[in-house]
């Protein structure tokens, strides 16, 4: 089907937003959604068009305990005094894939914990596919591609950023390799900022890295550190 024709694309996008595309039709549509701006726009338009429907329901203030419970559920990242730790990192760490990769990387049995003082993070796509394993020990940063690696779009680079806590701007940690291993020696400022960092993100930047010193392109991979 020719999705470039609005009269064909539009009803499909509407049905997709309603949850009515199923099976292979849905898979095909979702592939296009990721790669075709017109498809993504048609879906966004339908979501916005139908959004006032949701507001037909009169607002109801939930009981205070709901917010208390939400706070409790997001709390582990704070209360355990382990700034590198997050629920997402725990989920990644628990996965067999992570342990297997960790094991390969450290050339030790998969269940051996990381050496003390080493920070590890797995950078994954939004779908959870692992792309790079990042390790930091002292001033040494290593970026190891995982599996097939990831090749940036032509004329672009993947740039690694740490997200410092406390509202500070992202700090570049360098460009990621599309295969194999790359190393960086961090500045004392980078090492200091890493101590309070909340997570890592990878953005698509012009070849050679962001010209502004801050992310300019979309974030395509993310990860969190786990303490060794």
């Amino acid at each position: 089907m020719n999705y470039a024709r609005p009269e064909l694309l539009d009803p499909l996008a509407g049905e997709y937003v309603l949850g009515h595309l199923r099976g292979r039709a849905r898979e095909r549509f979702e592939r296009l959604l990721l790669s075709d701006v017109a498809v993504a726009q048609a879906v966004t338009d339908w979501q916005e068009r139908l959004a006032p429907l949701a507001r037909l329901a009169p607002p109801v203030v939930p009981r205070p305990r709901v917010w208390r419970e939400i706070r409790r559920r997001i709390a582990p990242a704070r209360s355990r005094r382990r700034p590198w730790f997050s629920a997402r990192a725990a989920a990644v760490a628990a996965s067999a894939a992570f342990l297997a990769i960790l094991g390969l990387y450290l050339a030790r049995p998969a269940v051996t914990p990381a050496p003390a003082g080493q920070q590890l993070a797995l950078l994954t796509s939004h779908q959870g596919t692992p792309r790079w394993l990042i390790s930091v020990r002292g001033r040494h940063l290593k970026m190891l591609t995982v599996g097939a690696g990831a090749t940036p779009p032509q004329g672009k680079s993947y740039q690694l950023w740490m997200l410092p806590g406390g509202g500070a701007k992202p700090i570049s940690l360098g460009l990621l390799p599309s295969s194999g291993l790359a190393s960086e020696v961090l500045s004392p400022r980078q090492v200091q900022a890493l101590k309070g960092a909340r997570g890592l993100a990878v953005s698509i930047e012009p070849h050679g890295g962001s010209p502004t010193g801050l992310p300019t392109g979309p974030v395509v991979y993310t990860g969190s550190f786990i303490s060794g």
Partner: protein
Amino acid sequence: MDGGTLGNRNRQAHLQRSMAACARGEEAGLEVLYGALSAQLFGLLMRILQRPDLAEEALQDTFINIWNKASEYRASRGTITTWATTIARNRAFDILRRERRDVPLDPLVLGELSDILGSESGAQEADVVRSRAESRRLAECLQRLSDRQRKSLTLAYFGGFTQEEIAGKLSAPLGTVKSWVRRALAGLKRCLET
């Protein structure tokens, strides 16, 4: 739907800053989003799920999801309110499937809008009034659809029902339901654009 008023733009910018704070792991960001969105989302979840315990569970999961996915949000893919609403609806539908839809259907799910349009309350904040005006316009467009076209749409949007399930509920062949849904979408779009 152009979001043109200054108040609305300020609100969107405020929500986007809060979303960025969530992405950095700052709880204060989530607290702002919760303050701005929870009553509207909870109202919707109560309509869909009809049980306070299930609606509270869905609301909690929605905000945990927002917290975990904050870094994935793209302003180019729609407003934060719409994004959060999509998350809430999907969570509610998951819970409905788990509960085997053991909940009665709300008039809203059945496309019976008159009681809702009649329940306007008194003075409200400007952006609430504006969003109610948008909802009212959409509701008027829905009223212009045939009964079955409207029901097909609301059963899907609020009930999470598949076309097969809607065919069962409305005792109609699947192909007919497909065309009702398509005509409902086209009619709605036409009405909103005029």
